[in-house]
């Protein structure tokens, strides 16, 4: 089993990848949000990750450690986006930064922990449980699957493959949910049949992790 060591340069390209993906998916995400929310989720995610990718790209690779990368990403995401996604992803990224604390490169176990920290950050900030039709429905099962795969000794690529599969299933499952958090929680049954936009964008982020470490 190969071992990847993820450093600042790697993280920069991961953020660049996510930003590109969001630019591609922006319209679809806005469309999903238009059905059960306020039609801006694609804009928020694109703005946020574009700002994060730009800010981390400007960091001096030799001087900046992974913690600084995550914290910089968190801060710029937050300043760019005031929507729900802003504090949710900023908190996620700060938690990731805390896990990376003191490390100049991250090994596979670290990356799994970081992935879990992202999910945990979102859940702590938004106080949503699985089943409430939010991005947590993608992030929580993805993080659990990722950890479980790691516990079974899978490679990082295998872990993120498991995470992606679980995240996709989770996002798909939001279609059958009535929302209890976020804007769509006012809609009651009218939200049924529609995927939560935050869960959809979570899958985009998770897919970037998967593709990056493949």
């Amino acid at each position, binding site marked *: 089993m190969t071992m990847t060591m993820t450093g600042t340069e790697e993280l920069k390209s991961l953020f660049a990848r996510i930003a590109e993906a969001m630019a591609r998916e922006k319209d679809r995400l*806005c*469309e999903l949000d*238009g059905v059960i*929310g*306020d*039609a*801006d989720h694609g*804009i*928020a995610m694109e703005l946020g990750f574009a700002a994060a990718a730009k800010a981390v790209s400007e960091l001096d690779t030799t001087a900046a450690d992974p913690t600084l990368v995550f914290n910089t990403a968190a801060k710029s995401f*937050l*300043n*760019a*986006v*005031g*929507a*729900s996604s*802003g*504090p*949710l992803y*900023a*908190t996620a990224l700060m938690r990731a930064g805390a896990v990376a604390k003191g490390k100049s490169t991250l090994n596979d176990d670290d990356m799994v922990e970081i992935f879990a920290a992202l999910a945990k950050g979102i859940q702590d*900030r*938004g106080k949503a449980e699985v089943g409430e039709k939010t991005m947590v429905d993608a992030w929580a099962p993805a993080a659990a699957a990722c950890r479980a795969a790691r516990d079974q000794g899978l490679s990082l690529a295998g872990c993120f493959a498991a995470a992606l599969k679980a995240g996709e299933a989770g996002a798909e499952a939001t279609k059958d949910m*009535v929302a*209890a*958090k*976020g*804007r769509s*929680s*006012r*809609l*009651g*049954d*009218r939200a049924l049949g529609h995927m939560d936009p935050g869960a959809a964008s979570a899958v985009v982020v998770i897919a970037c992790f998967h593709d990056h470490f493949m």
Partner: protein
Amino acid sequence: MKKFINTAETMVAESVEGFVRAHEEFVVFGVDRKFIRRRHIVPGKVAIISGGGAGHEPMHIGFVGHGMLDAACVGHIFTSPTPSQIASAIEEADTGAGCVLVVKNYDGDVMNFEMAAEMASGRHKIETVIVGDDIETARTGDGRGRRGIAGTVIVEKLLGAAAERGMTLAELKGLGDSLAPRIRSMGVALTGVAVPHTQRSTFALGPGEMEMGVGIHGEPGHSREPFSNADTIVRHLSETVYDDIARAAGKALLFVNGLGGTPPAELYLAYNTAHQFMVNHGLRIERSLVGTYATSLDMQGLSVTLAFLTDEEFSLWDSPVATAALRWGC
């Protein structure tokens, strides 16, 4: 969709700049134009700060001034301001007595204000009052889903007046929290609105339709109904609001708020119906407010708000206020 804008990107900044130019008497920009604050900060007074997405004007910037808000932060259209904007406002408005954040109950607003409070908590004493005056629907269950809509104006007015009178941070927090269960609102939309950024209308209504139970972000309400006459619509709103807090009882303030595209004449007509309904149900309407205070861009529609206040609170309502949108007594 014809609107008086130049570009979707610049519309909020241009509108807020126009606001500041028009009301230099009351307001100035805060640092880096991150927020609007009152021209003369009062040392020793607890600062009252609010904010939210743009598109609700005059809320909240129109309530910055003597007797109401000390600062207001404006986000993109229908999008919460960032923690950095809010933290800067706290920095500039709090002179040591602490500050109260008045937050409309939307996940985005709540989380951004919460992060700002965390960021600023080292140097400032901060309390948060969450406003959720929207009616409770069967679906929202524990009431967590109640959104902050037009009733927010009342909370901001009363807290602003109380702070001006010297109330402490803890007392203000107590007042704000105690108000929540006594203010209730419900809105109806006759048209959807499109956020210029996305050019996408969140709901479109036919000529014979209306959307009941809407908030102020162009989001759908809880049901689509056939359009009807003013009496039928307004009585339904009044009854729902009344039933939702009838337990509070007492003397009330009745508020009919326009959502942006409905003219004063129609708001007054609606007020007439709402007032009659409340009086017929034995309420004493001690104060009234009719006008366009909390909007959803140029949506045609309105909301009815009922607030049961104590004598002390009515006196806070009557206290002098000098802001762009609410002004009396000075």
